[in-house]
């Protein structure tokens, strides 16, 4: 904010932003990251590191690529440190080492993720086509061509949707109770929620299997709900925490009763955060196998009714088909895995897009 932004004589919206009238547009300068000597230092260190690794490889007759890469990396950091220390000072050199290491860690994580995704993509794309998305496996023998995961996609969609419809309202209400009303039972509830979040997924499935026997999609939903309720509740509570108290005070000072403060101010302010928490919970549910094992059980044909009869889901589909010693079935499993990964990625992307859009709309930066 500058003084001029606030000048009462400024003609409202028109004056702010935009180029000054009658002046040619100024070229924007590129902000430089590294100076020329810095580039040279990196280059020299990189060459030195790689040479050292190659030298060791030939001398000691290694063929382990991973080992060589690690040695090259360490040599690079060491040489770089020495050069920079020579030219500037130990402090600057140490700073460079730490920076390099952080970039390396980041790069390794991104590389692992990309590798995993591309591996799934390469193996999955073999069978992923329109037929795969629109047929089930009820009439396709294991050695025949065709067939697909429609039954599993429908199963996942139904089970996750039902679980979400239960989890989100309960989780948000619980979070409101914990953080807005700060009710008398808050301590106890927080303890229960924390304990629930430690329940292993297989146990959630077994629990439902015991108390509610028989196979049906909705029973998988119940197990998924037990599993994600604590996660979404705690995430929602964290998000309510990010709503500044000044907004609650402002609402109260306007004469609002507490429930309206929550409904009209706190929840709308936290809306995108809550949507993100929900989507992350959904993504987590879509990928869970164990809760569905004894509840939805799995099936080879489309079962539209989540209330009755065994139903497949994408993780169950993958799990069933990857276990058999049969190339075609394994390929189907990979294609199913790819569908699952795409669904989750789309959900994550939606979450990011939602919050970015909301931030922009509200003029937050």
């Amino acid at each position, binding site marked *: *904010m500058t003084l001029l*932004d606030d000048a*009462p*004589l400024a003609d409202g919206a028109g004056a702010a932003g935009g180029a000054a009238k009658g002046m040619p547009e100024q070229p924007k300068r590129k902000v430089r990251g590294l100076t020329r000597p810095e580039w040279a230092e990196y280059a020299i260190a990189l060459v030195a590191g790689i040479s050292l690794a190659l030298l060791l490889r030939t001398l000691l007759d290694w063929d382990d690529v991973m080992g060589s890469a690690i040695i090259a990396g360490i040599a690079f950091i060491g040489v770089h440190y020495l050069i920079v220390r020579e030219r500037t000072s130990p402090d600057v050199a140490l700073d460079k080492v730490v920076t390099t290491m952080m970039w390396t860690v980041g790069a390794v994580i991104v590389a692992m993720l990309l590798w995993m995704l591309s591996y799934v993509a390469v193996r999955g794309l073999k069978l992923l086509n329109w037929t795969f998305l629109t047929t089930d496996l009820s009439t396709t023998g294991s050695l025949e061509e065709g067939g697909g995961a429609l039954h599993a996609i429908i199963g996942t969609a139904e089970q996750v949707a039902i679980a979400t419809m239960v989890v989100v309202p309960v989780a948000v209400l619980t979070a409101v109770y914990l953080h807005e009303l700060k009710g008398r039972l808050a301590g106890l509830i927080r303890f229960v929620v924390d304990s629930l979040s430690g329940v292993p997924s297989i146990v959630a499935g077994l629990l439902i299997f015991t108390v509610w026997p028989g196979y049906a999609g909705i029973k998988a939903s119940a197990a998924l709900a037990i599993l994600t309720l604590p996660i979404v509740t705690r995430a929602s509570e964290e998000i309510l925490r990010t709503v500044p108290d000044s907004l609650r005070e402002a609402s109260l000072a*306007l*004469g609002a009763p507490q429930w*309206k403060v929550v409904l009209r101010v706190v929840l709308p302010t936290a809306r995108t955060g809550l949507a993100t928490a929900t989507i992350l919970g959904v993504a987590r549910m879509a990928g869970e196998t164990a809760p569905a094992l004894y509840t939805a059980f799995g099936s080879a044909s489309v079962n539209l009714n989540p209330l009755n009869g065994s139903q497949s889901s994408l993780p169950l589909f993958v799990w069933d088909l990857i276990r058999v010693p049969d190339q075609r079935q394994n390929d189907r499993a990979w294609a199913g895995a790819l569908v699952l990964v795409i669904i989750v990625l789309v959900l994550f992307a939606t979450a990011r897009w939602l919050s970015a859009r909301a931030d922009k*709309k509200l*003029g937050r930066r």
Partner: protein
Amino acid sequence: MSTHLDHDQQHTTTEPPVLTPQHLGPAAQGASSLTATDVSCWFGSRQVLERCSLSMEPGKVTALIGPSGCGKSTFLRTLNRMHEVVPGAKIAGTVELDGQDIYGEDLGVTEVRMAIGMVFQKPNPFPSMSIRDNVLAGLRLSGKSAGDKDTVVEESLRRAGLWNEVKDRLHDGGMSLSGGQQQRLCIARSLAVHPRVLLMDEPCSALDPISTRVVEETVIELAHQITIVIVTHNMQQAQRVSSQCAFFLVEEQKQPGRIVEAGDTATLFTNPKDQRTLDYVTGRFG
């Protein structure tokens, strides 16, 4: 209605009168008096205010001054029952709005807070609402019926001296404004429910000099219509906008704050009865 703020003058033809507290004339019609009697406050077991009595005249600006931590904000918050929002906070004494006890049986807390609005130190527009919805928020939140919404929005924004700057962008987010504009939006939001009294806690402390001037002019302008109580650390501001003034002080460490002296602003600043008031207003301690 036309306002006398100079930035609105581009669009209106009325001559702006010279505005100083001395020119305010008789109390505005329909303004209310607010009288605090023997107000004491506690946070838990710690007392921070001791028997503060102050009469805030209808249609006038009363300034609360004093060093940091002496309880000005706390006192202000007792005037519209915001003090009790803090867990463990307690209060003694009475506060009367036109002779009616705001802590009594007859008035609900919603009624009190609607009649006595509040503007905070840091601008706090609702980020999830547009400029227009921010102005209307008070009506919606308190369940009061609005009448014609567009009229309410325009009138409130005009009274807060913001209309000309935002009239073309009423549907933009409240956070898209500059800090000074946000503060005036908060003032408009408080005014939309037609309070009889407006409490302001250092409303200019987060603003630049130009926004400060605009807010001050808004305050002086509003004093024609409603009763205003303003906390400020700025002695010039207190003299510019207020006609009544109260000086708060913690006399000894760990002791609760008290009102040392209260009265006419001009007298308090030029010829105070208490030596400590003189020291404070002349900047010799504090």
